[in-house]
């Protein structure tokens, strides 16, 4: 009896602790300059510490930044593969990193969820307004890693579809293969209806435009698929144009602690930004996966020497 009660108490304790942990996870704003402890920069003022998110493409871009800076004589350290946005932005705030490759749309929405900016230039402007003091983004690259609607070549030819606006004239029911959030997000099913007047249903496939989504598009289970613009398999499909800017721009931008953004650093990084394209990102991803599996550092090195930036 008492043993049993003790067991129950212990179980209740575990549940309560779990509940506390859940509620304690409210997300603050890690770059909020009003909070204490901002920028206690470590390891000497001249060294630039380059961070990256925990996925290969972002790591490779970080390597590109790091090696380009190094080649120009800037002292650099790398701290790659730091989880997701909440985590690495906190690292940027507390000075454990100084520079990280980011994507304009997502970063802007992180600070200003209500902004209506969609195009590259609007988003870039809005992002500059939204960033907390002490941090800035350098020039945006042409390279974008964003969601995109894709159809097969056969579908495109049969129905004469090259743009989302053309979908209205397709007279068969349309199914989209995409992550589950496509059902509710403004760029997903609701946006297709509102912006382009197209009715479609969702097949939720939680692999972020990976092989199952690609397979479903190939075998005709879905007519449209959401695939990131830098996924190598996108090349076999027709990516639909988005004249009304349903999908927010996601240009690659270097997010940097202003204290470390010397004239030299700016010049070097902006040169890189001017040359980086979406096709480059596709080839980065190709090289870092599959049979090749080259290291991020090697891929970055090859790109820099091909562009004459080393």
């Amino acid at each position, binding site marked *: 009896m008492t043993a049993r009660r003790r067991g129950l108490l212990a179980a209740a304790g575990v549940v309560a602790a779990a*509940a506390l942990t859940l509620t304690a996870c409210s997300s603050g704003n890690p770059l909020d300059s009003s909070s204490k402890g901002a920028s206690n920069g470590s390891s000497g003022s001249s060294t630039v510490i380059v961070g990256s998110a925990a996925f290969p493409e972002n790591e490779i871009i970080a390597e590109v930044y790091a090696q380009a800076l190094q080649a120009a004589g800037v002292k650099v350290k790398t701290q790659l593969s730091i989880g997701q946005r909440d985590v690495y932005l906190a690292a940027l705030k507390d000075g454990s990193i100084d520079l990280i490759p980011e994507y304009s749309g997502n970063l802007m929405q992180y600070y200003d969820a209500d902004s209506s900016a969609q195009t590259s230039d609007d988003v870039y402007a809005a992002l500059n307004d939204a960033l907390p003091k002490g941090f800035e983004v350098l020039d945006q690259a042409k390279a974008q890693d964003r969601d995109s609607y894709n159809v097969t070549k056969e579908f495109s030819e049969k129905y004469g579809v090259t743009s989302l606006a053309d979908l209205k004239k397709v007279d068969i029911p349309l199914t989209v293969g995409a992550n589950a959030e496509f059902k509710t997000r403004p760029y997903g099913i609701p946006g297709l209806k509102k912006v382009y007047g197209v009715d479609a249903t969702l097949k*939720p496939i939680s692999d972020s435009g990976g092989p199952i989504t690609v*397979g479903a598009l190939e*075998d005709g289970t879905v007519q449209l698929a959401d695939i990131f613009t830098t996924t190598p398999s996108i090349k076999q499909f027709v990516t639909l144009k988005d004249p009304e800017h349903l999908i927010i721009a996601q240009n690659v931008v270097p997010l940097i602690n202003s204290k470390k953004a010397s004239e030299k650093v700016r010049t070097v990084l902006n040169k890189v930004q001017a040359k980086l394209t979406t096709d480059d990102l596709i080839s980065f991803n190709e090289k870092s996966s599959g049979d090749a599996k080259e290291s991020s550092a090697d891929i970055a090195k090859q790109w820099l020497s091909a562009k004459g930036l080393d």
Partner: protein
Amino acid sequence: MSSFIAAFGWIFDPAHNVGPDGIPARLGEHMLYTLLTLVIAAAVAVPIGFLIGHTGRGRGLAVQISGGLRSLPTLGLVILLALLLGIGLIGPLIALVVIAIPPLLAGAYAGVESVDRATVDAARAVGMTEWQILWKVEVPIGLPLIVGGLRSAALQAIATWTVAAYIPLGGLGRYLYDALPLRDYPQMLAGAILVIALALVVDGLFAIVQRLVTPRGVSEGRVSEVHDTMRSASGRGAVLAD
């Protein structure tokens, strides 16, 4: 505790109880998938289990194969089959059947095997055919264990169909996969609570069935001994616990 209040609020919100996304529809899908899995897996595993239990041959092989099947990573199998067969019900159904077979097989052969050999010899001595021995002696006496196999396979299937909603499927897993990217934690917790509730109810029903099918003369004590036999026979020691 506020998370749990929000989750229960979500479950009892009338808006979440109608339509194709509603709880009754998702619960129905989940039970249908589970039932389909059990029927197919039982059709494969139970006859083989009876054969092994009755003849006493092939037991080592069955233990090894079912032990091996148990160690397959579920989500990996679901994804692999989705890649090979395309998205739809068939791929995950095959994966789930593969996962439900080991407990059913273990229950079936352990049930038949657990019958006292003296009883079987007696049945043979009074002139029963092998078929009659199986159906009139071994299966009725071993039935609690056979139902026990069904019970753990059912729990396994309920849990695993939740994970399989990674690809486009209905069922209660939808709530978890749909809510995660939106950080809609009340919905996720609600989905988890519903899966747990379904598992507990089904487990309770099977516990009652198991008690009902225990023949008079097979005492409680005997059955628990038999449970031990079945545990050791399963190759992983925890047939009823997972």
